[in-house]
């Protein structure tokens, strides 16, 4: 069974939660007791339809009373041979950071556009984020087709506008589906109102799309998360370095380098669940043992000596500022990449991405909530990384405020 992680994006009121609700409802992924509760709630709300499908994912009281999505809701469903994890993300500008959260682990972006409005700032912003995150697949659902009389012409116009806009972006695989989430047209089954559309329904599309996992290079990358030291009589000298293979593979006997120290050693043993294995593949949770007794700590990288990553104290990155407090020049922050953390500072805000054109514009040096900027970051300890476009697991990071401990930015290394 394959797992597909996708997220919804689009403007407020474009119908994201309704579309997800429709997808779950029509694919029979909702239990009868939950439908019962929803029917009751929908009646209380006095809406037009029998069931307000958005109530399925709007799990917080404030969301239900305001009729908006504030934070990501994760939903799970299975059809035939595929398991889905959906992140229903908010459309409001002020909650873009939550949208970013839902998008960061996804393989597919489902972007909604209200057929009456066409492309909006949020469509563009979310597409830019999908592009920065290098989401492998994008499907654009042009929703509320009923409100434009199922017009093929208007649909084509939006499709053209989007293709024009996305030329600047790094989106490789873009598809379009005309839908009406409220009534279910082209969501699970083919619409009878749009016979001019020959493509697949959304669910069918999601079921059969060949999933490209986010880009990981074949280069062997590993970071130490935790050092296992039983300190018992029988295992007195046992020192195992636990972590996950971030990319590539590792084999017993290979020559490796510990970074940032640069010390070389040989893989003596690889363990998984206390059993020795000869090869460890990407994503495997393993424990390393080395020939030499070395000083290795949490956050250190273990890489093949023949294929080192970049090691720098200054990096250029694209970041999305996620703090309600603006960036203050010289502000002391922490840089975290997987288990590696070091003190850092944003030395320079190089440019700001203009969401209307997706073009980089000259920066005035400020960063406000939801700004997407190219920056120069200087760190106290050297960072071992690959470019994000080559390796998602070693090219992504977050910035943490030393003052509030909040996550204040997310970034991808150029």
């Amino acid at each position, binding site marked *: 069974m394959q797992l597909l992680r996708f997220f919804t994006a689009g403007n407020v009121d474009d119908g994201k939660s309704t579309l997800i609700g429709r997808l779950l409802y029509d694919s029979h992924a909702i*239990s009868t007791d939950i439908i019962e509760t929803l029917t009751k709630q929908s009646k209380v709300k006095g809406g037009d339809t029998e069931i307000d499908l958005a109530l399925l994912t709007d799990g917080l*009281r404030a969301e239900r009373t305001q009729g908006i999505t504030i934070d990501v809701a994760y939903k799970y469903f299975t059809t035939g041979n595929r398991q889905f994890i959906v992140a229903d993300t908010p459309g409001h500008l002020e909650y873009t950071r939550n949208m970013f959260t839902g998008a960061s682990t996804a393989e597919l972006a489902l972007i909604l556009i209200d057929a009456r409005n066409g492309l909006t700032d949020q469509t563009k912003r979310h597409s830019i984020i999908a592009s920065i995150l290098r989401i492998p697949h994008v499907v654009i659902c042009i929703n509320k087709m009923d409100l434009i009389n199922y017009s093929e012409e208007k649909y084509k116009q939006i499709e053209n506008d989007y293709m024009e806009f996305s030329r600047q972006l790094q989106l490789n695989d873009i598809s379009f589906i005309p839908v009406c989430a409220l009534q279910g047209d082209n969501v699970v089954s083919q619409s009878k109102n749009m016979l001019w559309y020959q493509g697949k329904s959304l669910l069918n599309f999601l079921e059969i799309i060949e999933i490209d*996992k986010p880009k990981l290079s074949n280069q062997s990358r590993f970071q130490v998360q935790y050092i296992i030291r039983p300190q018992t009589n029988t295992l007195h000298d046992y020192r195992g370095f636990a972590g*996950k293979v971030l990319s590539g593979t590792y084999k017993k006997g290979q020559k490796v380098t510990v970074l940032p120290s640069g010390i070389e050693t040989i893989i003596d043993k690889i363990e998984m669940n206390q059993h020795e294995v000869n090869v460890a593949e990407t994503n495997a949770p393993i424990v390393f043992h080395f020939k030499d007794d070395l000083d290795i700590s949490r956050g250190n990288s273990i890489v093949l000596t023949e294929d080192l990553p970049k090691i720098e104290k200054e990096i250029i990155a694209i970041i999305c500022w996620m703090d309600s407090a603006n960036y203050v020049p010289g502000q002391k922050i922490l840089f975290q990449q997987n288990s590696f953390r070091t003190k850092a500072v944003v030395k320079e805000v190089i440019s700001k991405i203009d969401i209307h054109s997706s073009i980089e514009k000259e920066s005035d040096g400020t960063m406000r909530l939801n700004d997407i900027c190219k920056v120069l970051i200087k760190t106290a300890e050297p960072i071992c990384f690959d470019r994000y476009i080559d390796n*998602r697991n070693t090219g992504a990071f977050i910035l943490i405020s030393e003052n509030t*401990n909040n996550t204040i930015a997310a970034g991808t290394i150029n």
Partner: protein
Amino acid sequence: MSKPLDYLDELESEAIYILREVAGQFERPALLFSGGKDSICLVHLALKAFRPSKFPFPLVHIDTGHNFQETISFRDNLVKKIDEKLIVRYVADTILNKKLQDGKGKFPTRNPLQTYTLLDVIEEFEFDACIGGARRDEEKARAKERIFSVRDEFGQWDPKMQRPELWNIYNGKINKGENVRVFPISNWTELDVWNYIKRENIHLPSIYFTHSRECILTENGQLMNTNEFVQREENDVVVKKNVRYRTVGDMTCTSAIESKASTVDDIIKELLETKISERGATRMDDRISEAAMEDRKKGGYF
């Protein structure tokens, strides 16, 4: 592009990664153990994450006093077998010490009272992270929660102020007095848990499987175990049925379901056919209001 993993391997790898992040980032973590299948899976995952070493955290059980005997003996056997530290704190003690009102009514649940005991034990041991087996597919408020969920010094969850959580980078930095609730199996569904139990051959308390039991059939059709905490009435409809428990919580708020499933395979088959959700089928506590879980979480519940 890397080849897609089997989804159970992917979920397992994610959970082990999260457990090791807890061990790496916190000074005094704990694993909240209820004796239910989800926390039993957590223990299994922790064995994979940390053996041959001991766990870098104790197991903590908040004992409501309304547990099934099978759960308690299972817990004690498991702890003995894996030789780990178990801390038990009793809701009954909290009720006495804090002069709290015990659960009332026909089915006097102590579920809301657990929160007091939990917050006390966090304070007593200064736990900075509590690992729990909650899953996002269980309930709509849980569907909104981060894997690292920061709670203030009162244990409160503020759903509008959650930290962004990106990729698999977990920010466990907190201020003094705050703590983090960590949910390594957030992305697992009920069915995933059972498929994993099958694959890993994990043992569970016997009440998850079919057995004959005397139950009170409630007005809304739920089968409640007859026991000393439930107030018996003359007109109670008492039936004897082949039942099993789909979730294992307190005897006073968890209902049984009619089932002939005697093996893990039977249960998986049953789940594939059922039309009722896990909590909908078994929990009285979530039926109180549509925001019951959200409200409990805001108050410090896990």
